[in-house]
């Protein structure tokens, strides 16, 4: 490569509060090359690129464009330096046509002439081999077409350095191939391209060089021709960092949640889950590892009753054998139904039949704990709403990824947020505030939540405290299955450990814990088994005690590997 350097970063550091997103990064991009930036989630790839695109401003360090030191304070500055970034989440006005989106914000002399723009857009498209209709409205476009509009938008502004943030995440294999052909043509045209990705085979097929980031630091830049999947994975995940999480052996694990053959599509019709099957056992933490957006969110939401499924079965096993039936969340009708199926026996082991009994007699029997389950209660959760799941007596707790969106109501205090779980209790039409208030006080005390008061809106608490409130509420519900999605995201190390300990305690109490995490070190140290998910497909189950980060990392990123069956 005899080309000149198009852009270089020297000792660039960026902090968010106490968290260091990038530390002393040095990076060079040559003219007419494709540089892949590779790294795990949260390693600072996007932050680094955002500093080139003017979204963030570096705290330390210099950026040079074509040999000149430059200061990029806004996207406008970046455009003026011929730098264009295509974000993962497209920034387009749905109601506008492709051309209108492309010309928006361009400060050009002369009149606004859409016809002119249309023909220029077509020219650019032809030059690089895009397919686009300039007059098509964005809301009528597929994801791939929207991406094309974004790319043409930066080309129209004359960019010679393009940054693509995970451009292939939302595309089909054919669309990816088409995109790569376009990128190769741009490269031949002398443009520099930075592509962020964590798919190794894509890195190997498209890039000239690879820069690897880990935990915000630049590890190395290697020529792609010298790299292999395993060498890249090794650099990407690094050495094992020891974490001190007290992990106990699972005690008497029993199947608690059985998931079989889940398939579902998202709103855009893209298949998100592909034939996902697994079993979560009691007294065990099942980790789910995968690149963000591989279907973890949909999987948990499907179990919680928030996601429509195309096919598949979700079965919950309630350990009720020889235990008395209660009216906990269960109506008399439900008890009678169960009886009709012959589910009960009395304390001496004789079958019970409610036939011919009055309701009051049944109530009395149940209240006296004289009605016992013959077998564990097995219930299908598919197609049920969260409320239905609860009224079946399934104690399923869900700590969603989006704490203040799905988990808690930001503008309400801690007590009110506790009541989101218990608002149906109490006399008809009235709320019982006493118990939730006691619970709120207990959580503040036990989990050391730092809050000015019990009624302070939870939005004003720090991320760690918000998470403690949410996890505390879900645990107080005495769950049989506890699902937590990225429960330590954005938390400092102390809060993280509080959460790990809470999860471990639940495991020791016989709860089936499902933990979706992004930090492989934590997954390996905390979980008993790890299920690896890749583009909505389960690529393997590993024993967290014996596996290595490299093994999990490969399962996360390889796409040509056939799906493995779960081996019990």
């Amino acid at each position, binding site marked *: 490569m005899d080309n000149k350097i198009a852009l270089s970063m020297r000792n660039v550091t960026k902090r968010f509060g106490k968290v260091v997103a990038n530390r002393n990064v040095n990076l060079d991009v040559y003219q007419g090359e494709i540089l892949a930036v590779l790294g795990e989630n949260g390693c600072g790839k996007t932050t680094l690129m955002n500093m080139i695109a003017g979204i963030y401003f570096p705290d330390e360090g210099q950026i040079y464009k074509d040999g000149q030191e430059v200061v990029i304070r806004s996207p406008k500055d970046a455009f003026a330096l011929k730098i264009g970034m295509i974000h993962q989440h497209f920034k387009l*006005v749905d109601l506008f046509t492709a051309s209108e989106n492309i010309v928006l914000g361009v400060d050009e002399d002369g009149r606004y002439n859409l016809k002119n723009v249309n023909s220029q857009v077509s020219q650019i498209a032809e030059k690089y081999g895009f397919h686009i209709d300039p007059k098509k409205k964005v809301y009528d476009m597929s994801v791939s077409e929207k991406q094309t509009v974004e790319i043409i938008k930066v080309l129209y502004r004359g960019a010679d350095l393009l940054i693509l943030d995970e451009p292939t995440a939302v595309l089909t294999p054919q669309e990816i191939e088409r995109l790569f052909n376009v990128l190769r043509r741009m490269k031949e045209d002398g443009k520099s391209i930075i592509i962020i990705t964590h798919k190794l085979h894509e890195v190997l097929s498209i890039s000239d060089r690879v820069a690897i980031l880990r935990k915000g630091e630049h590890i190395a830049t290697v020529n792609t021709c010298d790299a292999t999947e395993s060498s890249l994975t090794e650099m990407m995940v690094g050495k094992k960092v020891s974490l001190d999480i007290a992990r106990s052996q699972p005690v008497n694990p029993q199947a608690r949640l059985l998931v079989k053959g889940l398939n579902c599509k998202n709103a855009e019709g893209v298949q998100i889950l592909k034939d996902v099957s697994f079993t979560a056992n009691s007294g065990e933490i099942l980790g789910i590892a995968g690149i963000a957006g591989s279907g973890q969110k949909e999987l948990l939401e499907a179990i919680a009753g928030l996601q429509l499924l195309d096919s598949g079965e979700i079965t919950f096993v309630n350990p009720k054998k020889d235990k008395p039936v209660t009216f906990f969340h269960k109506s008399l009708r439900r008890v009678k139904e169960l009886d009709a199926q012959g589910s009960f026996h009395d304390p001496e082991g004789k079958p019970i039949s409610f036939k011919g009994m009055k309701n009051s007699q049944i109530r009395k029997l149940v209240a006296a704990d004289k009605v016992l389950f013959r077998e564990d209660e097995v219930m299908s959760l598919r197609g049920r709403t969260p409320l239905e799941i609860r009224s079946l007596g399934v104690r399923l707790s869900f700590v969603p990824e989006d704490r203040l969106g799905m988990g808690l109501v930001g503008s309400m205090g801690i007590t009110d947020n506790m009541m989101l779980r218990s608002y149906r209790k109490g006399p008809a039409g009235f709320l019982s505030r006493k118990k939730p208030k006691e619970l709120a006080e207990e959580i503040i005390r036990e989990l050391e939540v730092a809050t000015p008061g019990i009624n302070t809106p939870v939005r004003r608490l720090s991320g760690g405290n918000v998470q403690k409130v949410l996890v505390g509420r879900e645990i107080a519900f005495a769950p049989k299955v506890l699902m937590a999605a990225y429960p330590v995201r954005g938390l400092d190390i102390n809060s993280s450990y509080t959460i790990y300990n809470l999860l471990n305690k639940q495991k020791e109490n016989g709860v089936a814990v499902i933990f979706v995490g992004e930090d492989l070190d934590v997954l390996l140290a905390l979980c008993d088994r790890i299920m690896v998910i890749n583009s909505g497909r389960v690529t393997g189950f590993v024993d967290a005690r014996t596996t290595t980060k490299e093994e999990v990392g490969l399962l996360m990123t390889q796409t040509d590997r056939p799906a493995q069956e779960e081996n019990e």
Partner: protein
Amino acid sequence: MNPWLNFAIESLGFGAIFMYGATGEILTEKSGHLNLGIPGIMCMGGAGGCLALCLVGGLQLPGFLVVLIGILGAILFGMLTGLIYSFLTITLRANQNVTGLALTTFGAGLSKVLFGTMDHTVYLQFSRTLFRQPFAARSDALQKLGILFYLAILVCVVASYVLMRTKVGLRLRSIGENPGTADAVGVNVTRYKYIATLIGAGIAALGGFYSIIDFEASQEAYKNLEEYGWLSVALVIFALWRPHMAIVGSIIFGFLYRCASQLTQLGGIFSAMTAQSMLKMLPYVFTIAVLIFTSIRNKRENHPPASLGLPYFREER
């Protein structure tokens, strides 16, 4: 002159009040701001224009200057009232609905106080002689279509052109749809929002002034302004956020409302009061019908601006 034609012309003149109000509100809403203070701004505009005329009433100024001073007075008062709204909702990011409703109450009240202090004959003397040019001398309904009526149509057409055919319009619309995107490509969102809400307030204020000085030309006219303001807000929906559609809509609204006020003179057959109230209701019924129709068709172009009513923070992630 044919009484029917007479009636049609009067409806046309009446509709121009809503034309101003609706065009002003459309410009505002295209920037993503729902200004429910339009009725109050129209009241204040009327008061401002008349106040300006009262101030220059004694001086023997040339005609065109008097007209200009009246118009500028209306715009100034409208923009000042609008500035309260803009500052609260754009800079302080206050709730737009609450701010707007408060502004309507405020503007309607303050304008009544101002009118109470004015000598109505001073500003009304100009309406016939100056504002109703060039047909002031005629005895039929044409005399009611004065300068401000033609200005209303001009404003509508210009607003429509700017919105749909210029870069400025494209940027303004992009802000109402998706301010984050507009910001990312370097459009100054705050500046555009201020300009749109202020110009919108100025245009709406002219509607109030027009109603008092030009169309109704009576000392009781200011009492109806708030009602006309709400009709203008309804017309925005009726016109599907398009200024040129507001011209058609305002003629329909004007016609229906004119029918209502004519009915009092009929009487006899059935209770004129009841029929009048029913007719006055019709513009709103029509608006609801348009809403139902467009909701069923569900075409994206007929929806309100996507980020209407939502404050914009750049740092929000």
